[in-house]
């Protein structure tokens, strides 16, 4: 026993370092080591994945091309009052001639025309035409008159309003387009003309079809999950292979299987004709439309519903049902009042997972969706590879990303992201 007075003496390790300090140091070293282990992957993900995503987010508002290619005109336009009815002054016309001249030499002005053409049809040809003819101008009396002679559009005040509006380094026009809005000539924001309103409808269709696919996977997934969960393990281990095999089979294999089955000259139509249900010249159109997308995607996403549902149902003790039955409930009542509520977490996990995967799907709608069964992701791909309107593609992608992240937060609240199970 030590004297109470000497307990002040500090406990030390064998080398005489105070124990507290030594422990702290060891913990710190451990922490540093674990950080060092994670750091390489963190940096890797940052460089190869997060920076690209950030790049896309920035691109949805980026507009540097306009001030960069109009270095003289853009600052001058800032001083011009676009709310009046006056065309810009002679100095601005002069600046524009110089900018176009410079851009024509490097051909960059065509990119500017293409950029502004997304805002107003015809801008591309205005710039192309002007760039071709503006070279000949040698110190004219009036730049304005000469430009109007080249292309009378330069006398349209709305074109100048557009250029001024889009002369900043950032633009909101891509996001406005993505929700079917535009900036009117008077500077107010309003809906696009009816025939150009496609994106909100497409978002709506993406959500509606994804919801339909989710409901279908619940309807198809619930009975077989119940069967798998209540069968003896030996039998269910065999049957679950029927779920896992499609899960492990390439997405493109399954999509091409559905093409072989559903197309006009495909297996199902052949079968129906052979049975005599339909006439040979009235073959059903089951592909390149919404039916194709819904059927193929339900098939592809069904395992993602069955696996979480099955793992939740496995944890429901069979004694619950027996207790309910012994208390006088019918089979049906016991199932609806006891089993279904207990399996809700599985339905929730599977449903959100399937829904999230469905709204971002690209390959299957692209191959079997035709025009009526495509999703918002197909439009994003079109703007990046087809129309080259990268800003709009990025804006649509940003909106889709926000939607998916919101759903994931919901998923995390309900299921917990760590509970994602594989295979």
């Amino acid at each position, binding site marked *: 026993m030590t004297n109470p007075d000497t307990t002040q003496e500090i406990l030390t390790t064998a080398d005489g370092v105070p124990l507290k300090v030594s422990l702290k140091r060891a913990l710190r070293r451990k922490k540093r080591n*674990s950080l060092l282990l994670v750091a390489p992957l963190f940096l890797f993900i940052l460089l190869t994945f997060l920076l690209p995503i950030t790049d896309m987010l920035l691109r949805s508002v980026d507009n540097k091309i306009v001030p960069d290619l109009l270095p003289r005109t853009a600052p001058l336009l800032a001083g011009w009052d676009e709310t009046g009815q006056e065309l810009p002054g002679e100095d601005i016309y002069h600046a524009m001639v110089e900018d176009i001249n410079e851009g024509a030499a490097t051909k960059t002005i065509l990119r500017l025309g293409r950029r502004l053409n997304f805002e107003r049809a015809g801008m591309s040809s205005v710039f192309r035409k002007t760039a071709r003819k503006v070279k000949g101008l040698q110190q004219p009396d009036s730049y304005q008159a000469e430009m109007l002679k080249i292309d009378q559009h330069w006398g349209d005040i709305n074109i100048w309003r557009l250029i001024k509006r889009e002369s900043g380094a950032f633009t909101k026009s891509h996001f406005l387009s993505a929700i079917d809005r535009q900036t009117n000539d008077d500077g107010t924001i309003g809906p696009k003309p009816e025939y150009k309103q496609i994106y909100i409808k497409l978002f709506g269709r993406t959500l509606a079809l994804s919801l339909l696919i989710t409901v279908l996977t619940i309807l198809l997934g619930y009975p077989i999950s119940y069967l798998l969960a209540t069968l003896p393990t030996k039998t269910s281990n065999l049957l679950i292979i029927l779920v896992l095999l499609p899960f492990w089979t390439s997405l493109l294999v399954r999509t091409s299987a559905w093409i072989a089955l559903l197309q006009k000259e495909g297996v199902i139509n052949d079968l129906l004709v052979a049975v005599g249900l339909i006439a040979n010249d009235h073959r059903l159109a089951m592909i390149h439309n919404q039916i194709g997308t819904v059927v193929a995607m339900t098939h592809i996403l069904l395992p993602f519903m069955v696996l979480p549902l099955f793992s939740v149902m496995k944890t429901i003790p069979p004694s619950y049902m027996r207790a309910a039955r012994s208390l006088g409930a019918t089979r049906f009542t016991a199932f609806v009042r006891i089993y279904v509520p207990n399996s809700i977490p599985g339905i929730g996990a599977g449903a959100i997972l399937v829904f999230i995967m469905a709204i971002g799907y690209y390959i299957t709608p692209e191959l079997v969706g035709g025009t009526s069964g495509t999703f918002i992701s197909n439009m994003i791909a079109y703007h990046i590879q087809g129309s080259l309107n990268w800003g709009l593609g990025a804006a649509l992608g940003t909106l889709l*990303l926000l939607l998916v992240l919101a759903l994931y937060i919901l998923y995390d609240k309900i299921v917990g*992201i760590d509970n994602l199970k594989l295979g």
Partner: protein
Amino acid sequence: MAALPPYATLGERIWHYSYLAICGLIFLFLIFPILVIIPLSFNASPYFSFTPEMLTFDPAGYSLRWYHDFITNPNWQGAVRNSFIIAIFSTIISTFLGTLAALGLSRSNFPFRTTVMGILLSPMVVPFIISAAGMFFFYSRINLQGTYTGVILAHAALATPFVVITVTATLVGFDRSLTRSAASLGASPARVFFRITVPLITPGVISGALFAFVTSFDEVVVILFVGSYKQRTIPWQMFSGIREQISPTILAVATILILISILLLASVEILRRRNERLRGITST
């Protein structure tokens, strides 16, 4: 859903068997499209459906011409080569980085664990089309678009979350007293790691690597954007094949891929069982 008790009423019997029939139909829906591809790939004519000769089991209706086309066509040869090159390299990168990170993340005192985990798993969360768009923009800026390096890095990024998840799952059941007792018996940290930790987490690492390999081997959206014809993989070639000149060669390739996935399914299952056995969890 055990067998019906002998006292079941007629109604219950009818319901029971119709329920089983419904389940049978759903299983058929799951498996039929995959199975139907296999005989179709031996079609002698360039159709995606059964010809009368095939239905009467006339040998003339069957042929190996689409397999022959797959083996001899340079488009497909290049695709097979690229698929393996890209998948192998991205698997090496993602397995290495992912295993290290999982080891770090599993330590109890890791700061901001949830946030860091969220960031590391983000490539799995974001829809492929958005990753593809972002990578297309960014990789073209730094001249990696249309290069093997670009595609390998992109696939490695997409695959690491699977490695992190599987290795972390192995480490959850990891008995720390094993490493402690090794250390207390005088083993150096490196020796503890290689003699105790590595053998125990190997099944998790291998199944993580398998997932990474499949992710890359199967991936088609990102490669359509980040890659070009030169980096075409099997899925790339299938995608453009379905879109342009549809030929049953695709079904022959699909059949081969189905066989590969059966092999993969079997190996993952074997690994899972081995892992459970090693950790002393006996599955029934």
